[in-house]
């Protein structure tokens, strides 16, 4: 039984590993920009989708289904992003008798509309933030609504997810431009420009509950993930357990999440997102009807393979666990992205001309990186996830710090230097963070120390060497083969470490 992966990057590799573990052959699809990508090399079969832009490749439903039929795939895993929360794609799969690995199209469409999802939460007696009672289509409607409203507010895409189509509005004068951006981003990402309004909680944490459910009616919650470290509504660090969590709060939130799963007839893995205020009141945000980027930290602490579990559920099998396993230790994930910390964290593109990845006992690297890889602006900026497990949070922080100093990438800018500074920040070390931490508390300027003669010496030296070597750098190509061999060994070590972490 073949499994087609309708995705790219690290998540495509992650799904290939799970398929292989279950003895299922994997089929990769790829765009012209990804011809040399690792998921294409690793899968048992690979098919070209089309040109680089997502709309012509990874979002091209017809083409993906045609390939699935041609290659005789019985299962499709959508990963995250792209078509993963697209009800019409799930429905098209159902029609073609191809198993979509995720909840039914009905469940996706119910929970995918954030507005309807909130009403369902209300029915389940799950607390929600008060909000607009209608979906907003035009700026005129928004103006009418905003007449008697308290700022700041959030504008959010009705069909949103992944932090796209969201804008904060601090005062009335910002409304129009924020609406235009949110609405147009929502149109591009979700093909629906409608937005809704939510009050913006300034001091809140973003905490989510992982749940898995099978076709037999078993629903098991798997604890929380703390995701408060965000920039522009994109998560950067996740950890479990949350330093803020108590046993009572966890069990209340898990109960709420399970109630929502039951009410929406949810089958497969999913995540219920909440905002938690400083007084430990929680409010329902949305349900992500897919595998999350940050799923590995739950896997490390609960010793479960969520992707394998997803595939088994889709095949009609019972969950491998019928009640929540005991949590062990602490896990944290850093999302390494192609972003320039010296240029407002805007995306950085280019070709990777040197790569050294860290290896450690309890370190798991879910990475799509390889030497000579070209990073384009067409897709998400996520390059790799650095996941650490340890007995304590302190142990995890130490291991991640070491991993970062052993991680060397050249040719594009990455957020590695930013993580190095963040992991040393006193508030972060104590786990005292909220969703505003990055924007308000943590600024790199603050870390700037007095300039030293050593820094000046190095500046002049690097500048001088750069001038000398701009033309000669390309001569390094003879060394690449040696590097690739080394890199291959690295990858094997990674997966070996990972297996060990799972069995132990």
């Amino acid at each position, binding site marked *: 039984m073949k499994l087609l992966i309708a995705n790219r990057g690290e998540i495509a590799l992650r799904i290939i590993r799970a398929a292989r573990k279950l003895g299922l052959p994997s089929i990769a699809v790829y765009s012209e920009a990804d011809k040399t990508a690792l998921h294409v090399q690793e899968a048992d079969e690979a098919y070209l989708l089309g040109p680089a832009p*997502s709309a012509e490749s990874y979002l091209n439903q017809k083409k993906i289904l045609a390939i699935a039929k041609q290659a005789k795939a019985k299962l499709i895993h959508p990963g995250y*992003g792209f078509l993963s929360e697209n009800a019409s794609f799930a429905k098209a799969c159902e029609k073609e008798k191809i198993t979509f690995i995720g909840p039914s199209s009905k469940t996706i469409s119910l929970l995918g509309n954030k507005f309807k999802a909130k009403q369902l939460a209300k029915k389940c007696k799950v607390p929600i933030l008060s909000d607009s009672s209608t979906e907003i289509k035009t700026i005129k409607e928004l103006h009418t609504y905003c007449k008697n409203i308290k700022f700041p507010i959030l504008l959010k895409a009705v069909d949103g997810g*992944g932090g*796209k189509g969201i804008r904060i509005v601090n005062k009335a004068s910002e409304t129009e*431009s924020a609406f*235009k*951006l949110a609405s*147009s*981003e929502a149109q*591009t*990402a979700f093909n629906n420009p409608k937005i809704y309004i939510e009050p913006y909680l300034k001091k809140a944490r973003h905490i989510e509950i992982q749940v898995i459910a099978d076709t037999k009616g078993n629903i098991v919650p798997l604890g929380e993930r703390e995701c408060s470290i965000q920039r522009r509504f994109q998560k950067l660090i996740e950890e479990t357990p949350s330093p803020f969590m108590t046993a009572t709060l966890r069990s209340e939130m898990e109960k709420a999440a399970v109630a929502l799963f039951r009410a929406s007839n949810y089958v497969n893995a999913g995540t219920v997102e909440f905002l938690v205020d400083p007084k430990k009141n929680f409010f329902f945000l949305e349900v992500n009807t897919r595998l999350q980027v940050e799923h590995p930290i739950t896997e490390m602490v609960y010793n479960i393979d969520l992707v394998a579990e997803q595939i088994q559920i889709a095949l009609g099998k019972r969950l491998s666990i019928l009640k929540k396993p005991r949590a062990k230790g602490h896990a944290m994930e850093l999302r390494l992205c192609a972003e*320039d*910390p*010296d*240029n*407002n964290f*805007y*995306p*950085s*593109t280019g070709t*990777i*001309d*040197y790569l050294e990845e860290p290896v450690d006992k309890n370190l798991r690297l879910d990475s799509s990186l390889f030497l000579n890889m070209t990073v384009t*602006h*067409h*897709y*998400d*900026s996520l390059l790799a996830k650095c996941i650490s497990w340890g007995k304590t949070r302190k142990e995890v922080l130490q291991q991640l710090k070491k991993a970062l*100093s052993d991680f*060397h*990438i*050249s*040719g*594009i*800018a990455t957020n590695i*230097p930013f993580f*190095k*500074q963040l992991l*040393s920040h006193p508030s972060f070390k104590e786990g005292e963070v909220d969703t505003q931490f990055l924007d308000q508390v943590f600024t*790199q300027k603050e*870390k*700037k120390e*007095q*300039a030293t*003669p*050593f*820094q*000046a*010496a*190095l*500046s*002049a*030296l*690097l*500048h*001088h*060497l*750069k001038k000398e*070597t701009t033309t000669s*750098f390309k001569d390094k190509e003879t060394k690449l083969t040696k590097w690739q061999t080394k890199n291959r060994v690295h990858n094997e070590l990674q997966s070996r470490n990972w297996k060990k972490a799972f069995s132990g």
Partner: protein
Amino acid sequence: MNYKVEIGKKRFPVKLEKSGQDWLVEVGKERFTFSDLNQLGSSLFSFTHKKKKQFATTQFDSNKCTYWIENTQVNASVFSPTFSKEKNNQQSKSIQINSVMPGMVKKINIKVGDQTEKGMSLIVLEAMKMENEIVAPQSGIITHIYVHENQSVETNTPLIEIKKSGDK
């Protein structure tokens, strides 16, 4: 080789000298020795200083040198004695707005001849699925638009030229 280095408000005179495989660097009265210098990739260097191997991730833009070493980010300007003083663009009545990132021009909100106010949205750039607005840094009149919608741009691609208001 002699250089002048500026970091923040501090200025340092720096003298570089190659001695065998090592580099001797003098900053005022202080001396540093760097050995095993190696450019690993276009933006990555490694070296040994005081017996400790270190890595520096770099970014260069003419005389600007930015690097990260361990937890520290250093933004320096490096001038050689022959390097003409920084170009002074203060006199210019027009400003050119360049792309701050690679991406695609999603939308152009203005046309040549339009009057802009400071903070007005000029162009929407899309990169890696996020939309970013390029706003006018000052009021003026649009004199050039160098790009069209759906065009891919790199960092520093010229986008728009604005002529300051009140000038001829």
